């Protein structure tokens, strides 16, 4: 029997490590997918716009847990077996990428038209306009909504519990099974750990934002 709630910490911290790993990798995939789909939706070619729109609608229209189950439990029936980690990262990353694409799209559209015009007047090529003039400004606008999404993403990593990945939630529920009498302590501890992780991340994003905007706006 544990003597106090302190005894649960080592196990929970081990779970927190998985949670943070899943968070980092899914966030990277989500950002990549968000930029790819967000820019694709602004493409001149209708086929690219349509493909991006379908991706966004499908991943926003079904729920994350369903996507996770589908990738992990249903895909093996058509011969694709993803390891747990990969299934988790793909589901979370693609799901948040779909939401993030809207952020990218609207941030790009929000850059004043004069900026496009000035970059045309300086004879920049279309990709130079995008990467040296438009995106650097748009990215600044994306930071606050991306920060919010990142907190949502951390929370959603708890769903990997359903495919028995040993994340924070999973470790806590195993502990609870072993020490039912400590249920409340374990769950409160679990809530607090998520709270700390999420708060740290949102503070970090806010600091980054302040650092990047310093002297410019």
């Amino acid at each position, binding site marked *: 029997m544990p003597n106090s709630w302190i005894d649960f910490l080592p196990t929970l911290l081990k779970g927190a490590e998985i949670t943070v790993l899943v968070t980092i990798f899914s966030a990277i995939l989500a950002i990549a997918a968000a930029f790819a789909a967000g820019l694709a939706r602004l493409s001149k070619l209708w086929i690219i716009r349509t493909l991006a729109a379908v991706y966004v609608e499908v991943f926003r229209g079904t729920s994350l847990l369903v996507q996770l189950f589908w990738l992990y439990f249903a895909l093996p029936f058509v011969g694709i077996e993803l390891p747990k980690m990969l299934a988790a990262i793909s589901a979370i990353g693609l799901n948040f990428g779909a939401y993030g694409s809207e952020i990218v799209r609207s941030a790009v559209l929000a850059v*004043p038209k*004069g*900026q496009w*015009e*000035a970059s*045309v*007047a*300086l*004879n*920049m*090529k*279309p990709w*130079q306009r995008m990467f*040296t*003039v438009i995106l*650097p*400004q748009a990215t*600044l606008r994306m930071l606050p909504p991306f920060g919010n999404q990142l907190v949502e993403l951390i929370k959603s990593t708890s769903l990997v519990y359903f495919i028995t990945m040993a994340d924070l939630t999973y470790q806590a529920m195993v502990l609870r099974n072993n020490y039912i009498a400590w249920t409340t302590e374990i769950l409160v501890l679990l809530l607090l750990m998520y709270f700390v992780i999420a708060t740290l991340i949102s503070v970090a994003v806010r600091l980054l934002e302040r650092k990047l905007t310093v*002297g*410019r*706006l």
Partner: protein
Amino acid sequence: MNTVIIDQQEALPSRSEGEPSTKTQPIVRYKGITKSFGELQVLKGIDLEIQTGEKVAVIGPSGSGKTTMGRMLMTLEEPTEGTIEVDGELLWHMQNKEKLVRADEKHLHRMRCNVGMVFQHFNLFPHMNVLRNVAEAPRKVLGLSKEEAEERAVSMLGKVGLADKLKMYPANLSGGQKQRVAIARALVMRPKVMVFDEVTSALDPELVGEVLAVIREIAEEGEMAMLLITHEMDFAKEIADRVIFSADGRIVEQGTPEEIFDHPKSERLRSFLQRFRSGGN
């Protein structure tokens, strides 16, 4: 693809009244240019030539389409009908086998080397400091090395009197300073013709002078042709070789500054100047 086929017969200039004698090859030639935004026709047939090094001021009531004329030269607005030539080559069209087709991005890119523009609202890049605002395009577009580009930028910024503001961001500059950076940014690309689109209209009155002084200095250097779209009558009179009065989408009258300001022929121009003199700016 957006293919525009121009009847070449129609695209030829239909009239050429009041043009100065053609001593040199024109750097810009508008032929039968019209522009419609939906139902609204803002340009109703513009024919205009600008000679190498010539300073042309365009005056006229707002809504007369004069800004659209400048934006077309900068490829920001596509003509509905007609052609524009820059340095003897079509700007918005290119020859594809037998037909004239709409220029593609590659053609526009090549043609834009000749043209620069300064905007009413500066359009500086807010995420770059002053030096980078000016040095960015020479590096990325002209392919200069970082050192060369910055050297050019610094000397150009010195010319507009901002050598001490290199590390500042646009947000921390006054309107007049912003516009001077924008002028340096356009000049550093060494265009053959430059469009100044109401560059003092967004400025507080006390800041107009410093910007005009810079433009005056550039004008005196000669080489570069200028299309000055402006409300500053005195300034137009002072530096323009030729003044164009446009109203309702047409060029109503053109001539030397003396002809236009001191001996206006048309009633339309007389009443326009009248209103300006009585009401000030």
